[in-house]
């Protein structure tokens, strides 16, 4: 019984990581209607940047995380202004295929620079520390911290969207870009800032990926799929829904893995398909993709 409770708890906490994967994707979709196929590869890229910051520049993990966030946010801004802006308003084919091309470029660049070896980031005591919840139930400090971060990121984003001028510009541009432009909003700038913000979240996800799991240059697609599934399960446009989606994926993976080690990822995918059959618009849909 406690075994299963432990499994369940681990699954829930794993959901925190998936939520972080998904939030950046959800943000980019929410503001720009962009589904970024290179999203997973950008998470892996952030993990490698963290690795370089720690191992080559010898920064402490927390400082390295700050560096990764800055680098990725700046990269996101440049990516949007330099490349993705050319795909805005040109139907679905153009952004989809451009980001797919970008994904292949990123994977192979990382393969060329960092080799195909699996890597991980050493974070000292944090990796093994655990918190006892009474009885035989213990949870890792790191997974708990990841879940806490995921919730904090969502709260901050909600505040940003509802309470700030920039958030209002995001929502206006998302609702109707042309009208927003007429009201004096520089939509290109708004898109670039949204991408920078999305990449900052990707950076957080990347740092945690580096510490919690081993990663390699070709691990992006899998992370994109998890991110995508969490967004769809939760319902488009709902950040709390994304958290629920992430947890559902995490729990089904943990249960599947417990039944048979080969079924972990498979169970998550099946859970996603099941939700899609039962509730095509996700659990808590806010916007609809039309």
């Amino acid at each position, binding site marked *: 019984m406690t075994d299963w409770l432990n499994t369940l708890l681990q699954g829930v906490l794993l959901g925190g990581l998936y939520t972080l994967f998904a939030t950046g994707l959800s943000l980019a979709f929410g503001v720009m209607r962009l*589904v970024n*196929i290179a999203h997973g590869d950008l998470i892996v890229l952030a993990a490698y940047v963290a690795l370089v910051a720690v191992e080559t520049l010898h920064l402490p993990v927390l400082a390295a995380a700050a560096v990764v966030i800055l680098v990725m946010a700046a990269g996101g801004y440049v990516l949007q202004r330099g*490349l993705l802006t*050319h*795909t805005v308003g*040109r139907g*679905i*084919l*153009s*952004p*989809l*295929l*451009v980001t*797919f*091309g*970008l994904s*292949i*470029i990123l994977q*192979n*660049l990382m*393969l*060329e620079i960092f080799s195909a070896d699996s890597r991980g980031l050493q974070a000292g005591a944090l990796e093994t520390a655990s918190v006892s919840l009474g009885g035989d139930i213990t949870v890792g400090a790191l997974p708990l911290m990841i879940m806490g971060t995921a919730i904090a990121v969502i709260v901050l984003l909600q505040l940003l969207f509802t309470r700030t001028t920039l958030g209002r510009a995001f929502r206006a541009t998302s609702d109707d870009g042309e009208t927003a432009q007429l009201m004096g909003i520089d939509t290109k700038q708004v898109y670039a800032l949204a991408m920078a913000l999305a990449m900052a979240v990707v950076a957080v996800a990347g740092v945690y990926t580096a510490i919690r799991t081993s990663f390699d240059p070709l691990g992006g*697609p899998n992370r*994109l*799929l998890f991110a*995508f*599934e969490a967004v*769809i399960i939760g319902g488009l446009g709902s950040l709390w829904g994304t958290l629920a989606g992430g947890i559902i994926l995490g729990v089904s993976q943990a249960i599947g893995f417990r039944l*048979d080690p*080969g*079924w972990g*990822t*498979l169970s998550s*995918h*099946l859970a*996603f*398909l099941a939700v*899609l*059959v039962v509730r*095509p618009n996700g659990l808590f849909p806010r916007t609809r*993709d*039309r």
Partner: protein
Amino acid sequence: MTSQTPPPLPVTVAPAPARAPAKYAVTLSTRTSRVGETLLLVTAIALCLMPWWGDRSLIRTSTEFLYILALAQMWNMLAGYAGLVSIGQQAFVGIGGYCLVVFGVQMGLNIFLVVPVAAVVAALVAVPSALVLFRLRGAYFAVGTWVVAEVFRLLTANASVVGGGSGTSITAAVQGIPVWWRDALTLWGAVILGVGAIAAGYFVLRSRYGLALQAVRDSEAASGSLGIRVRRMQWMLYIASAAGCGAIGAIIFISKLRISPSAAFSLDWTTTVFFIVVIGGIGTLEGPILGTILFFALRGLLSDFGSWYLILLGAVAVIVMIRMPDGLWGWVLRRFNLSLFPTRRRLDRTP
């Protein structure tokens, strides 16, 4: 496409006053289209006769060229005509390949008879997949197809009956077939699929269904309002494309003779055809042909550079998508108005 005029043909336009009545007709064929048709036929015959005049390496390269071309046409049919971008066509390539293991190796069916069986199986599997996937639109459909492909890969990797994660050999199913016949039959299968995909696309696109399809591609909303049953058209194309990919998958792994889940359900199948179709010209029948030729030429030249070759291809695809979204053949079409397999209807003045 420029013309929205539906059949029947020809159309007579009201005469202009004070001039002799001018007559117009909607035409499809051009002089170059007859050249194109002849070229396709001659190439097909030459390819079919290759086992008598070509050496083994040429036959194998041609086989590979043809199945990649067929795969590209299948993807182009979805992305270029139905407006359905799939990142998961490897699902059906893999299912086709694994049909060889189940029907060929385990049930003892002649391995070349498995090819049509693979098409049927892939189409049958595509029906429930479509049921789930068609709840998603646009980019979400694209990523959804990828999830489905992953599910099939993981299911296969967990099925020890077909060799599990490490895969299995298909050699047992080709024992007793002389090498000459094996190569020849594989090549003919690839010719049927490669040339057949072009020919089928050509005839379908010139029919009224083709007109409807191109309208769907240009605007789902507008074509729906004109009475085209958009989802049904897309559904039929999705199933047809799955069947094609299934048969192609069978041919691919007959020529490879070894199969594993990671090879059969590899994203590389979709990546490759993505490069080919985007660079060659999406939404044209000639584009994928040009793209496949370019792909094989570049691969021959740059294969020593490993990942850099894929980085270069990716960069070219991105630049093409931004600078000339209709690809190289789109440029040819605009610059020279040259179309080997025209599917557009033109309003010509008749003498």
